[in-house]
């Protein structure tokens, strides 16, 4: 009896090492919490899963030496681990219990498992592929950006060099009236860097259009009667921002179809860069990679035609 009581005590004390120091309020709260936890109805699924797990665990646990039947059988001469009877190869384990819970035909479960396995393998493969392509994509994007930068750089150099030795009389930049740049027709510009100019013009154009729009809206919104001065000359007009847009001509120019430029733009960025590099070398004895304009056609000192040669 004493043993049992001892046993009972040890079970009643939760943590013998931790001194129990709680106020009555804490205690009430704890008890309430514990009671709630205990009385909480487990969901049907939770209970089913628990029961199933307990059954499986029990089915996998062999009867051990504490079992009375084990002792009796040992007395009859049974050696653990051996089989009964005289037939060689007799079973040592009970037949497995397997519950069938649906009406699936024979082989369906195996088939399902096989399909599931295949699908998983497929998915793993796809994920791997995705990883590869992502890396590729990032690298390609980076490469493209780099090439883009190089292209713009090369175009700027070409523009600079082309306009600097304008002895060809192309007159790309003519001083316009009143300091306003008068541009040559867009199509006369070298296609290699025409895109750059066009882009610049487009941006400028946009800016101006926005300004004009603002102007016009402020005009419209103004309740004040506008002052119309017949003495106003062009300069006054411009100063007042009432200038009629004289650039209308090259706005049209921008809208014009330009197959030559389109063709060039359709090229691979690397190819565009290569074309520019070659143009600069041929025309200006300039190596884009060395960032140096050589004196003669030999271009002595330049390691080669490509970026790699300049590493």
């Amino acid at each position: 009896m004493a043993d049992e009581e001892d046993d009972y005590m040890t079970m009643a004390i939760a943590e013998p090492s931790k001194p129990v120091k709680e106020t009555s309020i804490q205690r009430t709260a704890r008890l309430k919490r514990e009671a709630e936890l205990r009385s909480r109805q487990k969901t049907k699924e939770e209970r089913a899963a628990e029961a199933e797990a307990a059954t499986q665990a029990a089915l996998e646990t062999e009867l051990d030496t504490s079992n009375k039947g084990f002792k009796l059988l040992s007395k009859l001469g049974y050696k653990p681990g051996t089989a009964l009877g005289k037939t060689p190869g007799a079973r040592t384990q009970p037949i497995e219990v397997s519950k069938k819970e649906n009406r699936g035909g024979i082989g369906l479960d195996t088939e399902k498992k096989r399909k599931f396995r295949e699908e998983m393998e497929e998915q793993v493969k796809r994920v791997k592929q995705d990883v590869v392509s992502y890396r590729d994509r990032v690298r390609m994007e980076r490469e493209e950006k780099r090439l883009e930068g190089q292209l713009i750089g090369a175009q700027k150099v070409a523009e600079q060099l082309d306009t600097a030795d304008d002895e060809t009389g192309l007159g790309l930049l003519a001083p316009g009236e009143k300091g306003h740049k008068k541009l040559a027709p867009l199509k006369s510009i070298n296609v290699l860097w025409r895109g750059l100019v066009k882009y610049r013009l487009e941006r400028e154009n946009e800016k101006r259009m926005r300004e004009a729009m603002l102007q016009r809206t402020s005009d419209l919104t103004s309740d004040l009667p506008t002052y119309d001065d017949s003495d106003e000359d062009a300069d006054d007009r411009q100063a007042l921002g009432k200038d009629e847009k004289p650039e209308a001509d090259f706005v049209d120019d921008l809208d014009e179809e330009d197959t030559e430029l389109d063709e060039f733009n359709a090229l691979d960025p690397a190819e565009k860069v290569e074309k520019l590099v070659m143009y600069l070398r041929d025309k200006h004895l300039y190596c884009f990679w060395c960032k140096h304009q050589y004196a003669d056609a030999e271009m002595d000192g330049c390691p080669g035609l490509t970026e790699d040669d300049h590493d």
Partner: protein
Amino acid sequence: MADRRPSPSSSDDGGRVKRQKTSKSSSSKSTSDSVPALDPKQNPYLAHHYEDASDEGASDEDGAMVMLKHLKRHKTTAAQAEKIEIQAHNPWTMRKHSQRYFEILNKRRGLPVFHQRQEFLDLYHKSQILVFVGETGSGKTTQIPQYVLYDDLPQRKGQMVACTQPRRVAAMSVAQRVADELDVKLGEEVGYSIRFEDRTSEKTVLKYMTDGMLLREAMADNNLSRYSTLILDEAHERTMATDILMGLLKEVVERRPDLKIIVMSATLDAAKFQRYFNDAPLLAVPGRTHPVEIFYTPEPERDYVDAAIRTVIQIHGTEPEGDILLFMTGEEEIEDACKRIGLEADSIIGELDAGPLKVYPLYGGLPPQQQQMIFEPAPPPRRPGGKPGRKVIVSTNIAETSLTIDGIVYVVDPGFSKQKVYNPRIRVESLLVSPISRASAQQRAGRAGRTRPGKCFRLYTEAAFKKELIDQTHPEILRSNLATTVLQLKKLGVEDLVHFDLMDPPAPETLMRALEELNYLTCLDDEGELTDMGRLASEFPLDPTLSVMLICSPEFYCSSEILSIVALLSAPQIFSRPSSQRRKADEMKAYFTHAGGDHLTMLNAYHAFIAAQTEGEDMYKWCYEHFLNYRSLSQVVSVRSQLQRIMERQNIELVSTPFEDKQYWSNIQRALVSGFFMQVAKRDGSSNKTYKTVKDNQSVLLHPSTTLGQDSEWVIYNEFVLTSKNYIRTVTAIKPDWLLDHSPEYYDLDTIKDRDMKLSLQAVKDHMRRKEAMKRRA
């Protein structure tokens, strides 16, 4: 049978029906007729005209007798026996043979096994043990015992020939058939013996019996000295009793060189039997079978019931004439399938102009007259010249081996059957739907080739057939609780249980559990020796739990009631609940309900049945009105009286507490504990419905059929059933102190692992101690 005589076919409807029958019977007739019809002297009908020609030249009255007398035991020939068989007088009864006798004899001589009679006798003479393989329909079950009878002549030494059958019904019906064949009265020269029914007499020379009965006889007479030859039929079914008998007979033949054993099997795994019986000789008789074409599905089926119904309908719509056999797993599934096939057939009959379709269920629990219906011929065409009708039989695996239905040409096999499983680790014994074995699948397919070439539709892929199915069905001994068996073996004098030579020894843990259970039931002592209780318990043809309960019941003044309960638990379910009238059935059951539990409710129903009977009610009608199963209850009455006789023989008092006494019910409940104290569950604190089994800690639910009131914390249960959920079935409320009181050894708290359970039992124990102390002080 009589209407199966050939008749000229006519063009009217009735003629068509008959013609179908005729075509079947005439084919079997032609083989049987051919031999004797040639020579008038061979014609059994005319045999008496040629009597003078016999060697003995004896008079009509004793010719056969004399001939039988002159036979030399174990040296006879087939010809000698066949000659005696065609005499006018019956050598066993000395009466004149009836006309029917010769009609049957004619048929018998057409059976495949008849052609090997001499071959059989030669082997039988030479060897003590013989393995005989013959497909169902070969005639082995009816003929071999008779062949043995004419050679073994057991009456000369006052012995008998016995032939065992796994099923009671088979033992009874085969005995009747063989009695007819020998032209004797059942119960005289030919009899049968099954549990709770013995129809034999002193005259009996050939006895059909269940294998279980032979085992029981062996317990009383370890050498089975009453028998000259033992025939174990249907050994391939590997029932528990047959397996034990085989192990036992291996030992008995050593002690009794005069005893002959014939092991008969229907399947060709005969090599295993031969090996087991020290390379015994084998005789195989071909069955009358036709080739069967086998079809597999290309893909596994999502729902085998749907697939089965679809297949049946497809066969009916597209295949030529011939009946269909569909295998399903259980009663409910069968009834459901029957209904759905009926409905779907109606719709395609209209669409495809298919013939009429008749669907019959077939399972063990079906009333006999309904079981007989499966032998009715297929329906006639709807109109003259229309497509022929067809019958579909939806059956459990009864139709696999034990029952032969003629006319089956198509078999649909979903590949499942309900099989018993036992697991010693959680002590669960349950029927579970499981895949069949390859041997079973072959057997099923074979059913299609009984009449003519047939087709078998397997509702699984060929790969699944090869990879997923096990080779042979596990024998029953591997799937059962062994408590009863161990008690029997002990009684049979088997000392070394560990090395007892079984064909398929079970897992050691199964034997451990059985020993443990018997020890706690005090049937075996701590040395594993049989106790007085064990000896007494083994007298009853019952599970030890029930026998021990019965033996203990006079202590609780209710042995009469416990006897009724034991009889109720040994018979099939008495409450009937047809799916169409569930509510009504439940209302009626409520009339008998005792909130204390199902055992008590059953007892109420039984008492009501007896009361109505004494009042002279029409019992069949009364049962029908009260949704009770008349057959089961009649069986309960008969089992009860058999058990009562054993109790009287063993001087166990039959007593009752007066019904008015307030202890009437609690005494019964206490007595139940004396047997069921190891089948106990306690309500799980967290929920009303879930219980936990004591010691094994399995979560279980009360079976929905229970009548138990909700306020019962502790219950005993009759069965732990494994389905999609785990159920305990047939439960009754008890008090926990009875448990500690009855078996303190089993309820030794050190052996209880579950903490909650241990605490509860500890509390009960403390309470009991306090009560005891108070009593002492008072």
